[in-house]
C-alpha cells in the first residue's frame, strides 16, 4: 500500500469500505496456530485455485479497481477464532456460514455450492456433540452465542496482516483521539474509571499503574507489553498477538501517551513464532503508514515499538525478571520496591502491562469508561478471556464478563465434560484448574460461584492469566499437584532460598506420596513447607507456587489420605499404587499376557478368563501392551 503519510484514518476507512461493497462474498479462513496445525494453509491454497477455476475474481488485499461483470471473492486468513478443536474453520460472509473441520477435498464443493450458488453444505456445519444437531454460524453455535467477545471481537474477522482492514474497523482512531484530544491525565483517569485491572494475573488497577508512572519526573520512560505467556494451558495472548496485532500496538501507544513515554517493547515468548512474525509485520506496516514513528497524528509526539523475543524462561513473566531479560541478562526478579513505575527498564520509569489488558484499552478510549464497566461485577469490570481446555467437549478460547459462573462456562459454552475417549458424559466432572501453576482447583460445589478476582482469591485460586483446565473423574489430583510443582520447581530461577529449596522439597514429598512411601508426617510437612514458600519467596512465582498443592489438599484431602494410608490411587494414575486386574467382560483367554508376563503372575486356561496375582505383579505393563482386547485394567 502507499505510504499514508500522516495517515488520514477516515479516508482509508472510506476507500476500504467502498471497495468492500463490491465484494460478492468473503471467505475467512482461520489461520491461528491451532488451525494451521490442522491444515488451514493447504485449505487456503485450495480456495485460491478453486475460486479462479470457477471463473471468479479473487482478491487477497482489496483493490480499488474491479471487474463489473465478475463475481468477486475476497479470501482472507484470520487470527485465531477460538474454536480450535473444530479447525480448520472457514467462514463465508455475508451469510456468516461457518464450516468446521474443512479438508482440502471439501473446497471445490464449497466454492461450487456456497460461493457460486448460495447453498449451505449441511455436513460441514458444526455438529453439537450432545444431540447431534447442526448449527450454521457463530450466532447459532452455543460455544459462541453465550460469549461476549469484546477484546477478542475482531480476532477471527479482520485480516491480522492488513493494517488497512484494521483501520476500516475504526482502528487507530482511539490512539489518534488520545494523542490529539486528550491530556495524559485524562487518559489515565478514563482507564481508572473503567475499572480495568491487569489481565496477566495480579489484577492491579491499570489506571492507577499509569498514574504512578506519569507522576515520575524523567526524560525517558518506557512501555512494555508483556507477551511472555508462560502459564501452561493459557493461550489468549498468543491468539491476540496473532489475530489482532494492531489492537495490541494501539493499546501500547495509548499507554505511552498516558505515561509520557515514546519508546516501547513487546516481549513475546519464542514458543510463539507466528505471534512474533505477525507483531513484527504489524509494527513495520504501522511505521510505513506513519501511525508509528515521529510526530504521529501531527501531535508532536513520537512513538517507536521494538520486539524482544524471549528465550524460554517462565519466570520472565514476572515484571522485574522480564526487564532484566530485555537488558540482556539472566531473567531474575528483583525485590520491590522500587517498583517499575519508579525504576524500571534501564533504570527508567516503566509501565508494564499484559497483552490482553492493552488490547482492551483502545476499546475503552473509543467507547468510554461507562461502556466497559457496565460489564462485570462490583470490583472486577469488563470481560475476561479464558483458555478452556482439558476434558471438555468444546475446547478453545472464550470471552465472558466477570461474574459468569463456571457452570455456564463448562456446560453451556464448553458443551459438557468428556470421558477419556472424548465422549460427553453427564456426570464426569471432578475439578477445574484455574490460573495455571499459580492457581488452584475448584470443585463441583464451586460451579455456581461467579468468577471474579476477589471470589477466586477467597477460594485459594486466582484468575491468573485465565487458563481453565477441566478434569474428569479419571484424573488423579495428587498427580495434577505434582505436575504443577514439577513445573514451578524447574522454572524457579534459584535466586531466593524458599522458592529454590522449598519447591524441590515439596516435589520430592509429592513423589513419595505417588510412590507409596509417604507417611502422615510427610503430608503435614508438605503443608508446612507450602506455607513457608508462599510467605517467604521473593517474587510471584514462588509466592504462588504452592497454590496448586495447598488447594488440592483442601479440596481433595481424602484422595491424599487414600494415597498415603491405603496406598491406593482410585484413578489408577499412580503406577505404584494402581491395582492391575483383568476385565472379565473383555478377556477372551488368548493367553498372550500370561505368556509374556516376566514374573509369571498371570494364570488362566486357554479360552478362559485370566487372573493376575497382585502379590507377584510388578506392574511392568507388558500385559497391557500385548493385550489386543484392552482387557487389562489399571494402566491409565
Amino acid at each position, binding site marked *: 500500500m502507499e505510504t499514508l503519510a500522516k495517515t488520514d484514518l477516515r479516508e482509508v476507512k472510506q476507500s476500504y469500505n467502498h471497495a468492500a461493497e463490491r465484494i460478492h462474498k468473503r471467505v475467512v479462513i482461520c489461520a491461528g496456530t491451532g488451525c494451521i*496445525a490442522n491444515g488451514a494453509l493447504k485449505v487456503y491454497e485450495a480456495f485460491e485455485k478453486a475460486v479462479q477455476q470457477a471463473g471468479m475474481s479473487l482478491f487477497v488485499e482489496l483493490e480499488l479497481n474491479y471487474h463489473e461483470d465478475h463475481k468477486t471473492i475476497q479470501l482472507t486468513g484470520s487470527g485465531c477464532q477460538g474454536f480450535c478443536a473444530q479447525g480448520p474453520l472457514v467462514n463465508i460472509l455475508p451469510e456468516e456460514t461457518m464450516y468446521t473441520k474443512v479438508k482440502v477435498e471439501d473446497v471445490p464443493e464449497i466454492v461450487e455450492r456456497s460461493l457460486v450458488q448460495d447453498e449451505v453444505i449441511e455436513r460441514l456445519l458444526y455438529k453439537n456433540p450432545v444431540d447431534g444437531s447442526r448449527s450454521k454460524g457463530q450466532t447459532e453455535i452455543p460455544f459462541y452465542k453465550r460469549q461476549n467477545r469484546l477484546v477478542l471481537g475482531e480476532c477471527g474477522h479482520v485480516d491480522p496482516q492488513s493494517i488497512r482492514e484494521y483501520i476500516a474497523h475504526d482502528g487507530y482512531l482511539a490512539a489518534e483521539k488520545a494523542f490529539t484530544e486528550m491530556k495524559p491525565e485524562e487518559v489515565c483517569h478514563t482507564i481508572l474509571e473503567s475499572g480495568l485491572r491487569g489481565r496477566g494475573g495480579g489484577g492491579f488497577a491499570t489506571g492507577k499503574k499509569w498514574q504512578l508512572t506519569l507522576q515520575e519526573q524523567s526524560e525517558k520512560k518506557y512501555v512494555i507489553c508483556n507477551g511472555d505467556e508462560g502459564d501452561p494451558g*493459557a493461550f489468549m495472548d*498468543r491468539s491476540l498477538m496473532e489475530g489482532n496485532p494492531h489492537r495490541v500496538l494501539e493499546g501500547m501507544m495509548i499507554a505511552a501517551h498516558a505515561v509520557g513515554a515514546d519508546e516501547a517493547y513487546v516481549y513475546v515468548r519464542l*514458543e510463539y513464532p507466528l505471534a512474533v512474525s505477525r507483531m513484527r509485520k504489524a509494527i513495520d506496516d504501522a511505521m510505513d503508514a506513519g501511525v508509528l514513528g515521529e510526530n504521529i497524528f501531527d501531535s508532536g509526539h513520537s512513538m517507536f515499538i521494538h520486539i524482544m523475543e524471549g528465550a524460554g524462561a517462565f519466570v520472565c513473566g514476572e515484571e522485574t525478571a522480564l526487564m532484566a531479560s530485555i537488558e540482556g541478562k539472566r531473567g531474575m526478579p528483583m525485590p520491590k520496591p522500587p517498583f517499575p513505575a519508579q525504576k524500571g527498564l534501564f533504570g527508567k520509569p516503566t509501565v508494564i502491562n499484559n497483552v490482553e489488558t492493552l488490547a482492551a484499552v483502545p476499546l475503552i478510549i473509543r467507547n468510554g469508561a461507562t461502556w466497559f464497566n457496565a460489564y462485570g461485577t462490583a470490583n472486577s469490570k469488563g470481560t475476561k478471556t479464558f483458555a478452556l481446555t482439558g476434558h471438555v467437549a468444546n*475446547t478453545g478460547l472464550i470471552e465472558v464478563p466477570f461474574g459468569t459462573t463456571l457452570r455456564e462456562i463448562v456446560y453451556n459454552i464448553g458443551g459438557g465434560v468428556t470421558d477419556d475417549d472424548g465422549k460427553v458424559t453427564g456426570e464426569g466432572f471432578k475439578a477445574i484448574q484455574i490460573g495455571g501453576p499459580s492457581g488452584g482447583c475448584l470443585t463441583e460445589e464451586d460451579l455456581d460461584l461467579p468468577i471474579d478476582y476477589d471470589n477466586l482469591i477467597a477460594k485459594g485460586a486466582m484468575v491468573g492469566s485465565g487458563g481453565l*483446565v477441566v478434569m474428569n473423574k479419571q484424573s488423579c489430583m495428587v498427580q495434577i499437584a505434582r505436575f*504443577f510443582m514439577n513445573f514451578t520447581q524447574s522454572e524457579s530461577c534459584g535466586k531466593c532460598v524458599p522458592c529454590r529449596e522449598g519447591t524441590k522439597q515439596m516435589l520430592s514429598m509429592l513423589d513419595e506420596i505417588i510412590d507409596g512411601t509417604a507417611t502422615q508426617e510427610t503430608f503435614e510437612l508438605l503443608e508446612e513447607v507450602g506455607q513457608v514458600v508462599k510467605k517467604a519467596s521473593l517474587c510471584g512465582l514462588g509466592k504462588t507456587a504452592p497454590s496448586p498443592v495447598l488447594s488440592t489438599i483442601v479440596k481433595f484431602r481424602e484422595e491424599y489420605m487414600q494415597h498415603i494410608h491405603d496406598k491406593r490411587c482410585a484413578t489408577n494414575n499412580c503406577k505404584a499404587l494402581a491395582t492391575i486386574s483383568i476385565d472379565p467382560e473383555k478377556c477372551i483367554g488368548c493367553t498372550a499376557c500370561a505368556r509374556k508376563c516376566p514374573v509369571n503372575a498371570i494364570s488362566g486356561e486357554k479360552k478362559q478368563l485370566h487372573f493376575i496375582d497382585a502379590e507377584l505383579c510388578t506392574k511392568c505393563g507388558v500385559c497391557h501392551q500385548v493385550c489386543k482386547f484392552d482387557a487389562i485394567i489399571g494402566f491409565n
Partner: protein
Amino acid sequence: MKTETNNKIRQFDQVLEIIQKHKYQKTRLITILQEVQEVYRFLPQEVLTYVATALDMPVAEVYGVATFYAHFSLEAKGKYVIKVCNGTACHVKGSSKLLDTLRSQLRLNAEKHTTDDMLFTIEAVSCLGACGLAPVMVINEQVYGEVSSARSSELLNKIIEKETETASAS
C-alpha cells in the same frame, strides 16, 4: 578436512556479522545468542567465548545467560527436533504417554535426548499454546495436534523411511 576448517571460519564470520549488526551492545546478548544458535543449531563453547570477547564481557556472564534460558542448547541437536508439549492440557490428555512411546522407540530417556546417529532429538517443552489440540507435538517447525501414540510412531517411521531412502540413494 580443510573445507571443514574453512567452513568453521566462515561461520565465525557469521557470528561477527551478527554482533556487528547489533552494534556490540551488551543489552542485545540474548538476541545475539538466538541468532548465533540459528547458525550453529546449538551454542558451541568456542562461540560463547568468541561472543564474550567481542562484547567485552566475562565468559561466565555469557555462559550464565546461555544456561539460564531453556531455548539455548550447549549440545548439538539431531536433524529432527521433536518437541512434545508438556502443558497442562496436553498433560491431562496423555502427553507423558506420548513421550514414553517416542523415547522407547528411539531408545532415548530423560537424560539422553539425542540419538547416536544425530537424526532425532526429543524434548519435553513447556506449553506451546495450542491447548485446544492437546496433546501437541512439533517436529522441527511443523505442529501436529491430537497426536495419539500410534500416530506419533507413524510420523517417526515416515521420517526414518525417508532418511533411509536418501541415504541409500546417495
